[in-house]
């Protein structure tokens, strides 16, 4: 049974003012976040009641999710609701701009919702308070259980309108949920909304699992499992739970990722002490060798157009990052700085490669251009790695182990995010310890 999530979007009005006065410059950090007022959505009285859902509170809940999303970007400053002077229903109809300007808001979000015939209808408007004009007005109809996604989609629409770039709130993160002592760590695949809500565990923890990654349509995951103590790359269908081993390799396969078209899996295959990079076509099952070198070649990641692959190799002696054409030709080393480099990941925008760098006992998450120039280290810590890009290429999620106690015996592993400007580092709340995050693409495109 495949659950089909349908959200219909209705454009209430054409976007009238393409040259609005407020616009957020996101090339800088969060130096001057935009003050925004998110009015609780008005809940229409005639709404039906729904099992396990307090419709009365839904307007406030949705506005809270929108606020949290905005706050997490570091680009917005959601204002305190106590200062709001207009009732949600009246504000949605026609805000008194002077009143909202008085509390120093520059943008205002209003909305209303209703439930009829087991359908949730949500309407919102974004107002430019500087120009005293409406910027966006949209309505969504969906099943009531989808209310969180509606909140994220509204957040995306507003983010897009105000920054000029696509959003990343209606997304999920797949990761490895960790528990237990370090020498017998239990690891499970887990999936959650980008804001940490709705966590679901996909494996039971009977075998070690590592490095899950989404396919472009977010329905499949490829990962490493030690099922029956044979470390192999697997494929998992998130909806059906069906799992299968990828290919028939006589040895360990690891470090998998999908090609940008979703048709192939690229991974390392280790045999007789040597790891090389291979692809397997998921339909024809044809296996292709991409690298052939006596050194370790691993952590491959495609450019978004599928023409290039960046990867990690110690062919020069120590771990460095290399780029080659997707057929394995034209291998070029791109990192020459001091220290070792690993986990290269190509940005979905194509312009940058994110990586982990280890130098003088410290781990750094950084970005550089695809020829290795313009290296910028975003964050330094004792141990952190495995960056993954937000679908708009603005934010990286990674994981960090924070040590505690005598000789660092105690530790917690958590997911963190950071803007590619190096600002706005944040811990992402997860139910358990967490590692190896992978960010999905936008669920509704």
């Amino acid at each position: 049974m495949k659950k089909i999530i349908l959200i219909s979007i209705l454009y209430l009005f054409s976007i009238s003012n393409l040259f609005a006065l407020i616009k957020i410059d996101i090339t800088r950090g969060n130096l001057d976040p935009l003050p925004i007022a998110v009015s609780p959505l008005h809940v229409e009285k005639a709404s039906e009641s729904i099992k396990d859902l307090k419709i009365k509170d839904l307007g406030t809940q949705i506005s809270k999710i929108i606020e949290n999303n905005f706050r997490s970007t570091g680009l917005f400053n959601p204002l305190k609701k106590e200062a709001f002077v207009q009732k949600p229903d009246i504000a949605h109809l026609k805000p008194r701009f002077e009143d909202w300007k008085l509390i120093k808001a520059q943008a205002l979000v209003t909305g209303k919702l209703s439930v009829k015939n087991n359908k949730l209808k949500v309407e919102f408007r974004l107002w430019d308070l500087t120009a005293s004009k409406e910027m966006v007005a949209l309505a969504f109809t969906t099943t009531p259980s989808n209310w969180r996604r509606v909140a994220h989609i509204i957040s995306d629409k507003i983010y897009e309108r105000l920054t000029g770039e696509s959003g990343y709130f209606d997304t999920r993160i797949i990761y490895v949920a960790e528990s237990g002592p370090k020498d017998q760590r239990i690891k499970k695949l887990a999936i959650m909304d980008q804001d940490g809500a709705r966590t679901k565990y996909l494996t039971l923890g009977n075998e070690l699992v590592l490095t899950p990654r989404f396919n472009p349509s977010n329905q499949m995951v490829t990962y490493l499992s030690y099922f029956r103590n044979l470390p192999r790359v697997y494929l998992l269908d998130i909806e059906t739970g069906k799992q299968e081993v990828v290919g028939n390799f006589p040895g360990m396969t690891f470090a998998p990722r999908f090609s940008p078209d979703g048709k192939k899996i690229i991974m390392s295959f280790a045999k007789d002490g040597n790891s090389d990079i291979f692809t397997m076509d998921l339909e024809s099952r044809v296996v292709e060798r991409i690298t052939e070198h006596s050194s370790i070649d691993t952590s491959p990641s495609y450019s978004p157009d599928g023409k290039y692959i960046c990867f990690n190799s110690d062919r020069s002696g120590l771990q460095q990052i290399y780029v080659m054409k997707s057929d394995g030709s034209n291998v070029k080393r791109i990192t020459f700085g001091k220290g070792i480099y690993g986990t290269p990941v190509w940005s979905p925008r194509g312009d940058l490669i994110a990586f982990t760098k280890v130098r003088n006992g410290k781990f750094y998450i950084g970005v550089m251009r695809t020829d290795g120039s313009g290296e910028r280290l975003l964050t330094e810590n004792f141990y952190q790695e495995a960056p993954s890009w937000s679908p708009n290429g603005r934010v990286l999620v990674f994981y960090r182990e924070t040590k505690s106690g005598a000789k660092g015996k105690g530790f917690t592993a958590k997911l963190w995010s950071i803007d590619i400007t190096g600002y706005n580092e944040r811990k992402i709340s997860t139910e358990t310890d967490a590692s190896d995050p992978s960010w999905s693409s936008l669920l509704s495109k």
Partner: protein
Amino acid sequence: MKFIKNLRNLFLILFATLALSACSTAKKSQTSGDVYTGTDTVEYLASGVKDRVFFATNKSSLTSASRETLRKQATYLRKNKKLNVTIEGHADERGTREFNLALGERRANAVKDYLMTYGISGKRMSVISYGKERPVNTESTPLAWSQNRRSVTVKVK
């Protein structure tokens, strides 16, 4: 005579001092280069046959001490012809996860290759890399990392 006695005493004192200092250095430093040389985490396949060898950071080459351990393992395996083993390769936590998986595999194979040169059939040995997933010492210290950079020969039951 007295001179000789004095000389002997001097030698005794010298010897005692040397022995003491040797003793104290052995306790302080359990690594050579950054390869672990102690026995704190070591288990034994049989009397005198250590189950593991240790590696330098990012390396998979065998030290002379490691080769001696492996020759003893080979002798033991030749005597116990029905015994099969799994060779586990491990890395410390100071590297990236995926690279460490490859490194563990390379270390385990270095051991396997060496045992094969001493006549042990490859069919009796399987190899598995755990990367940094199964440390033997969970501390975050250079000593712990040196104990975790290892290859362990495990009997298959």
